[in-house]
């Protein structure tokens, strides 16, 4: 699957580590800005990646984010080990949240994270195995024709 023109970087996300929560997305944003990705796309990637990262911090033990860049697409995959999601359709609904009081005090738990990811990514796939973990894949097209 490896392409010559592909750049791949892997980041680790730690569950419950609120002091670092969001730092992976900040880094991805900087990488994309540096290589000259249009700012409207950088923004969409950063928002989606940040929401996914925060979900790992809040609901999983540990996760890995893989950023894959090629001239056509930006791909972000987030795989975590954690409680997983029983009912994905329900989790995708705006306003649905199982965030604790503590998380709400920190400004999370609007139940808007997954809907925000769906809104910002050109392609969004989520699968989950309860008790094992969750996998998210997002694609962003650099080609204007296909992009949102």
């Amino acid at each position: 699957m490896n392409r010559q023109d592909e750049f791949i970087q892997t980041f680790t996300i730690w569950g419950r580590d609120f002091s670092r929560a969001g730092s992976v997305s900040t880094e991805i944003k900087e990488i994309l800005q540096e290589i000259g990705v249009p700012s409207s796309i950088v923004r969409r990637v950063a928002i989606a990646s940040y929401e996914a990262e925060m979900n790992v911090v809040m609901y999983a033990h540990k996760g890995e984010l893989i950023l894959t860049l090629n001239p056509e697409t930006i791909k972000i995959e987030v795989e975590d080990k954690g409680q997983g999601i029983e009912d994905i359709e329900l989790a995708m609904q705006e306003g649905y949240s199982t965030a604790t009081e503590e998380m709400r005090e920190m400004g999370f738990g609007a139940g808007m994270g997954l809907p925000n990811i769906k809104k910002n990514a050109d392609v969004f796939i989520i699968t989950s195995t309860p008790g094992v973990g969750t996998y998210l894949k997002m694609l962003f097209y650099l080609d204007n024709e296909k992009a949102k």
Partner: protein
Amino acid sequence: MTLHQIKELLQAEVIYGNHCLDIEITFAGGSDLMSDVLAFGKPGILLLTGLTNLQSVRTADIIEAKAIIYVRGKKPDAQTIKFAREKNIPILSTPLMMYEACGLLYQAGLPGVGSLNQSTTSDE
């Protein structure tokens, strides 16, 4: 409206960003929910929030907010201020409550994000 005018109007204290009080602010939005901010925020927004944790600045950075106003006299911790400095996002603190701070700004002519959808500013 400049950030300096906003500071005066809200009797706010500058926590970081004294050197950039002359920046022009054209619209604002307020929320304590970070996902809401990520959903409605537009580049250049002035963000009013009661949340002072590190994620408030991360969220502001991600949506490319011009500045943050913390309401109800809240102030962030040293790590958060350091991050705001790194990202060069001015942060201010007003003793006013969210409702009053937003009300004063709106009354002074500063619109919300909603107005951007219909009017002048170009779409992304």
